[in-house]
């Protein structure tokens, strides 16, 4: 029994030693949000790590030249959700498409306080607005555009489009929906008549996967078709279809011009300078550089304006500055600001997988 006693005492000593020989867990700091002026700045959507529901919104304050992260969570004391695909400011609200959480959060664009959650839209991607009607592209059932009454924040109709609708543009009372193919292939743009919210026509492009569009001062719609990488049935690489820039006449809904961009690279995004003279192209996994194309005489870009990797980007319509958004895997990414001539202005930490932000459309 003496041995047992000794054993117990030793076991107890071992236990106590193991408990208290370890370092204390570090507790992460809490950083409350202060008073924020939302009148002069850019809202940035950060997807978050897929499946982790840590998508977020960052806010670049132009007056203070700083960034506030986790805006939604700090102000509304709840997480935003999984894969924050985009944010769109319209009138007194900002609409946040949370793709993998199948919802659109509506917040005040002045206080960022929660106002409503739009439900009934699976896989929401992007939103554009026309007066009190919102149009939200969604990958539900292959491809849909949900029509939302922005007074009630309820879905009032569904317009079926082709596969994987992404960004949209409004010109001449038409809604141009880029059918990107989703996880597959598509070559079409669905044109929706905003008078009756019905499909007016479908434009078929001579290449693949249109993903983004902007409208210039002359109501032309500039479309970026990112092209594709071609594999055989066994996923062997066969080649690429190039990325191509198209100019669409929004009166006739026909292609006015096309410009080959990159033979083997497939950028996702296009934006336009405040004066409508310059198109900016870039943004995607591993795509390096922001390239420019003149809207008067579009030609294949040779060298990038900014030679940075960027997952997403946007143009600040107030001054033409370029916001480069870099991902850093499952940790916070970076915002790098450049002026329109390509001079670096500053670097800031934003959320996980920053992909874009609020910007005013030309129209």
């Amino acid at each position, binding site marked *: *029994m003496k*041995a*047992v006693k000794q*054993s*117990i005492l*030793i*076991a*107890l000593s*071992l*236990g*106590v030693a*193991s*408990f208290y*020989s*370890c*370092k*204390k*867990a570090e*507790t*992460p700091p*809490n950083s409350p949000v202060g008073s924020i002026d939302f009148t002069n700045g850019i809202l940035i959507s950060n997807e978050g*790590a897929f*499946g*982790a*529901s*840590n998508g977020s919104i960052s806010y670049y304050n132009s007056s203070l030249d700083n960034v506030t992260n986790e805006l939604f969570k700090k102000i509304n004391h*709840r*997480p935003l*959700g*999984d894969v924050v695909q985009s944010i769109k400011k319209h009138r007194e609200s900002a609409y946040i498409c*949370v793709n*993998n*959480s*199948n*919802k659109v959060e509506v917040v005040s664009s002045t206080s960022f306080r*929660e106002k409503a*959650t739009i*439900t009934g839209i699976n*896989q929401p991607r992007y939103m554009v607005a026309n007066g009190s009607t919102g149009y939200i592209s969604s*990958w539900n059932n*292959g491809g849909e555009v949900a029509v939302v009454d922005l007074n009630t924040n309820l879905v009032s109709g569904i317009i079926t489009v082709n596969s994987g609708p992404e960004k949209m543009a409004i010109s001449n009372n038409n809604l141009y929906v880029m059918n990107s193919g989703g*996880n*597959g292939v598509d070559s079409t743009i669905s044109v929706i008549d905003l008078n009756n919210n019905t499909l007016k026509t479908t434009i078929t492009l001579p290449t693949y996967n249109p993903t983004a569009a902007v409208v210039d001062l002359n109501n032309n719609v500039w479309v970026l078709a990112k092209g594709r*990488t071609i594999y055989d049935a*066994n*996923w*062997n690489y066969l080649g690429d279809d190039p990325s191509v820039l198209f100019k669409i006449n929004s009166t006739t809904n026909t292609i006015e011009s096309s410009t080959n961009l990159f033979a083997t*690279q497939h950028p996702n995004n296009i934006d336009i300078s405040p004066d409508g003279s310059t198109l900016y192209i870039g943004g*995607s*996994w*591993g*795509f390096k550089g922001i390239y420019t194309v003149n809207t008067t005489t579009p030609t294949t870009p040779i060298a990038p304006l900014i030679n940075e990797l960027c997952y997403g980007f946007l143009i600040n319509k107030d001054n033409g500055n370029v916001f480069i958004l870099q*991902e*850093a*895997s*499952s*940790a*916070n*990414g970076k915002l790098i600001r450049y002026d329109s001539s390509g001079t670096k202005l500053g670097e800031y930490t934003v959320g*996980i997988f920053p992909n874009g932000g609020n910007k005013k459309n030309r129209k």
Partner: protein
Amino acid sequence: MNKTGNNTTFSSMGRSLLLLPLCCFIFSFTQAQDSTSIHSTQELPEFSVSEKLDKMFSKINTQEIDSHVLQSNNTNNLATLLSKNSAVTIKSYGVTGLSSISMRGGNSNHTAVVWNGFNIQDPLNGGFNFASSSTNFVDAINVQHGGSSTAFGSGAIGGTIHLDNQPIFNNKLFGSVSHKIGSFGLNATTIELGHSKQKIATRLRFFRNYTNNNFEFQNNTKIGSPTEKYNKAKTEQYGFLYEFYFKPNNKEVFSTQLWLQDNFREIPPSITANSIENQNEETQKNQWVRWALNWNKTAEKLDYEIRTGVFYNRLNYVNSNIQLNSIHSSLRNTSEAMATLHFLKKQKVIFGVNNSYTVGISENFNNSPSVNSTALYLSPNFSIGNKLNLITSIRKELYKQKLKPITYSINGKFNLHKNYYLTASFSKNYRTPNFNDLYWGGNAAKGNLNLEDEYGFSKDIGLGLKTLEKRITLSSSLSFYHNSINNQIVWSPKGQEWSPDNVKLVETQGVEFLFSSKYSIKKTLQLYYNLTYAYTDAMVKEKSDNESDEVLGKQLIYIPYYQANNSFGIKYKHLSFDVNLQYTDYQFTRTDNTDWITPYFLTDIGTQYTLKQKKYNLLISSKINNLFNVVYEARQWYPMPRMNYELGIKLIIK
């Protein structure tokens, strides 16, 4: 997620609370030791289908899950059992989700899972879902900590979980039927039938587990924090295990085991999703066939184990949200021959050869890739007097016609006293890339055929004690370890495609403390107390280029610094009562450690009454899980059930 300044205090308090039962137990022992002693009912060790663990490692650094614990978790899955009764970390993806394991900071494919001597990790992703495996299909579970289990092959960097079947040669017909009901639609049935004669034993086991998991929770991720309920979180499992043993003489056993299982689960989304109650269909159906054939022979000089097995695994994942319906399958044959040569009284050398041929079948693979590997291993074990036991092993593998570097381990056990011992081990191990890492093909992701092995070094020292007296059995061990895993495979974007590379270095250090005891106060009154505790400091030291610098030096996600389990039981005549306390510390949910889930402390209680008759026993059991209705998440934004109950009845035919 709210965090208060009292968290560290709570953490310390949680640890102190865990120590309290230990102190109480010691107090009760010192008070009771003069009472009438009884004869301990020492159980004889049973024969396992594979004796490889015992022969090669003498179970150093190994926790054997108590048979009482196995019995009381009879209808639970292995994830629940291990999370409440061992020092491993179970990473759960919600209430019906995948439950993978982490040992010593490694990820799931750094822990080998061995069933009767066969590695049964999924060859496609290297993982193993512990939530799919029912406890009642295994008769012994050993948790081997550290990378010293070199002979078990690729993957055993963090440790190895051994699941074993043990034949019963009792010369009679036996069987049992059990049924359990519980909260959230729990409905579990087990049937077992066995028969043995002097030379032949057969046993057949069947189970069905069904749970709706339709529990309510407050959804704090939505405006107004509404109360919601999971509607599509059902799990349903059917399993069938047949064993046949033929013992022509006392030194030889032929055996075969056939394990069929069908697992279906609905996968509820994170509660940040809009449509919890009317979600789209997201399901997973996992089916497997595991068949093994073994021959074991023991002799004075030479023991043999020869085995072959076929393992088929099929996974069907459906997600209507993204119009995905994919099927991924694998087929593997493993054959092994092992011999143990005994010489000079206590010395022995073990040598063996293991061949494995695996085919992966998936629409994401180019054709059906296959891998053939053959490994030779040698393990000399030396005993020097009664003091020192030295166990060494080396292994060389020919993998896809290329020779892998030698892996090795050295384990020492030094007996300080008949009850106390010191242990130390050092090992090098590796993990070959899995099929998805190598062969995956898809629109935006592609495997990398040039991947190298991950490799790791593991070292630990420990102190242990084992006391076996008439009324008390007690064992305890304390281990300090350091592990490094180099060349860790990370998927990252390359150009516009994701692909894997060998870029990461993770270093882990920690402490493991195990304590188990049984105490017979009287013939009719027994107590038991078990404690497991782990401190794990697992940090990223090197990262991929595209990862933020902020991840360097940070704790890995979902690896708590502290975790502990206490279980206390008392048995009086035919009535027993158990309490289980589980503490899990903060778990970071972001790689830069800026978000986390809070610690939780769970309490389960259970009671069982056994009605003993001449020809049968009737067991009536009840259990309350999460007694104090703790609101917690094991995965961020995936709530776990609050207080819930189980009621069971089991008829055992003797």
